[in-house]
């Protein structure tokens, strides 16, 4: 609850500071301070120190898992602002408003971290999405940005309709918006009989599932992702592709956590189909992209395929893993995007020879890319490790894991193309001005990736179910 309130307030503060402040470059520091405050507030709640108590009548229920995830999202945002804060200021004419919108998104994230009712899910997703529609279109003179914004909006609204239909059907079947499935029947003698769900409920869940698939860009509902990520100003793509997407995943898992019992065996088949389709589309299509930005968009689809394993496995390892995956993926993607924004040319050729002109940038980007490909000693490895381990732990789906692993090998192809450009190809990569602070930030991100890659317990030890 702390995070929701504080982030809302901070959003308002940002709006006002936009009016009050003459020097716009101070905004960034206010945002950083705000995020730190937010982080502290969230930590307070995680460890039992409630500053603000609001009775949400069980519409929201914060558990450690969710709060911890929220902390990660906030911390990721912090890193994102530190690295790209300057670029947010230059993305359009309304920097204060952009910062405010980012805080509103965080509010949505916080809601998604604790929702206990489909109503809150719906509201959270809308609060998350609406600022993003705006941010996507923030480069107002750019037709691509406009187009991306409209596409995102139309498809988002359409999916919202689907989601609402799903919610309505579930409501029709169960008479409640709570997400704990009431269908598990406990007989008077204590014996738990197999839950029996009505068709309506299952159809509703299916529609919900579809709409969540859309949010996390799982195939075949991923179509918006490449276009929107490509068209949006890079700095916001970075945000969308990482924090927002991770929040979507978290909501997804939370939503379906307890439902697998009523979903039945067909559910796994369907999910594996979605996983394979996602991996296929993401990885294969990314192979021939010339624009690094678009490649990253497809790569985010591919990564989503991996994250869906957590849903498939639905066990403790999976929950632990999705946390790590979200962290690893966000860190790496934020790092790469931070560099990408500095590039004059977003195509692969634009990266040619970066290692010579900006060795630090090249090195950190390389570490990020290695992490995305899941090479050991980077955080990405343990992320993938947990995902695979969680599925294997269920005792089935070995074939799925093998397919995933083969696609991971394909993913190496396009990630390493960037490395090849930077290190092995001749050229003069043009960048905008790189400050020492920016480099330091990048090095920090890279170091964090390696640290988690060597000792994931650093992250996971703070986390107990």
């Amino acid at each position, binding site marked *: 609850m702390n995070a929701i309130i504080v982030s809302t307030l901070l959003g308002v503060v940002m709006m006002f500071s936009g009016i009050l402040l003459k020097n716009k470059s101070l905004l960034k520091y206010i945002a950083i301070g705000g995020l730190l405050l937010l982080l502290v507030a969230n930590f307070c709640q995680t460890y039992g120190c409630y500053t603000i108590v609001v009775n949400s009548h069980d519409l929201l229920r914060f558990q450690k898992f969710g709060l911890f995830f929220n902390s990660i999202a906030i911390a990721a945002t912090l890193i994102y602002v530190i690295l790209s804060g300057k670029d947010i200021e230059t993305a359009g004419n309304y920097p204060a408003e952009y910062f405010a919108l980012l805080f509103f998104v965080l509010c949505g994230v916080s809601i998604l971290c604790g929702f206990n009712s489909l109503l809150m899910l719906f509201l959270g997703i809308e609060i998350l999405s609406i600022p993003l529609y705006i941010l996507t279109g923030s480069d107002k003179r750019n037709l691509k940005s406009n187009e991306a914004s409209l596409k995102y909006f139309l498809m988002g609204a359409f999916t919202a309709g689907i989601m609402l239909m799903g919610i309505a059907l579930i409501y029709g079947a169960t*008479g409640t918006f709570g997400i704990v499935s009431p269908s598990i029947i406990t007989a008077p003698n204590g014996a738990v009989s197999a839950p029996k769900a009505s068709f309506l409920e299952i159809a509703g869940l299916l529609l919900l599932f579809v709409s969540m698939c859309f949010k996390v860009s799982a195939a075949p509902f991923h179509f918006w992702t490449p276009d*929107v990520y490509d068209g949006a100003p890079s700095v916001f793509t970075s945000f969308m592709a990482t924090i927002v997407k991770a929040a979507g995943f978290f909501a997804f898992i939370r939503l379906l956590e307890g439902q697998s019992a009523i979903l039945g065996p067909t559910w796994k088949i369907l999910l594996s189909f979605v996983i394979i389709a996602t991996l296929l589309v993401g990885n294969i299509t990314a192979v021939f992209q010339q624009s690094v930005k678009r490649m990253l968009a497809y790569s985010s689809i591919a990564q989503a395929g991996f994250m869906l394993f957590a849903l498939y496995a639905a066990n403790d390892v999976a929950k632990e893993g999705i946390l790590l995956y979200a962290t690893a993926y966000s860190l790496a993607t934020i790092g790469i995007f931070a560099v990408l924004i500095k590039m004059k040319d977003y195509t692969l050729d634009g990266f040619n020879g970066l290692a010579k002109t900006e060795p630090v940038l090249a090195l950190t980007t390389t570490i990020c890319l290695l992490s995305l490909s899941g090479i050991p000693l980077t955080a990405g490895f343990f992320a993938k490790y947990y995902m695979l381990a969680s599925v294997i732990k269920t005792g089935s789906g070995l074939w799925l894991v093998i397919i995933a692993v083969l696609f991971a090998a394909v993913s190496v192809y396009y990630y390493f193309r960037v490395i090849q450009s930077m290190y092995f190809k001749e050229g003069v990569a043009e960048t905008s001005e790189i400050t020492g602070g920016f480099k330091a930030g990048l090095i920090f991100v890279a170091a964090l990736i390696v640290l988690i890659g060597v000792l994931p317990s650093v992250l996971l030890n703070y986390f107990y179910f």
Partner: protein
Amino acid sequence: MPIQYYIYLCLALFSIGIIGALTRRNVIVVFMCIELMFNAVNLLLVAFSKMHLGMAAISDKASTVGTDGQLFVFFIMVVAAAEVSVGLAIIVMLFRNTHSVDINFLNRLKN
């Protein structure tokens, strides 16, 4: 009224909305069709709400079961209003740049 009738009606409206979104090229009309979908859901929610109330009222005359369904409709309307304002803003912005609201022209981003 049998609840199925309401469900059929709502599904019909919802599907008409979907068909509209799929077949029209004018962004605004597409958007309106999406609003139609929302409304179909709203009606369905109200019908369900009354269905649950009806079932609960058999045993408890003063039951308030189903209130949440109607409140949900309220929230949907709120969200829809917010979405419409943003959506129309986006459409206006696009129109300013392209002087068109044709959805088929939205194809700079592809492949």
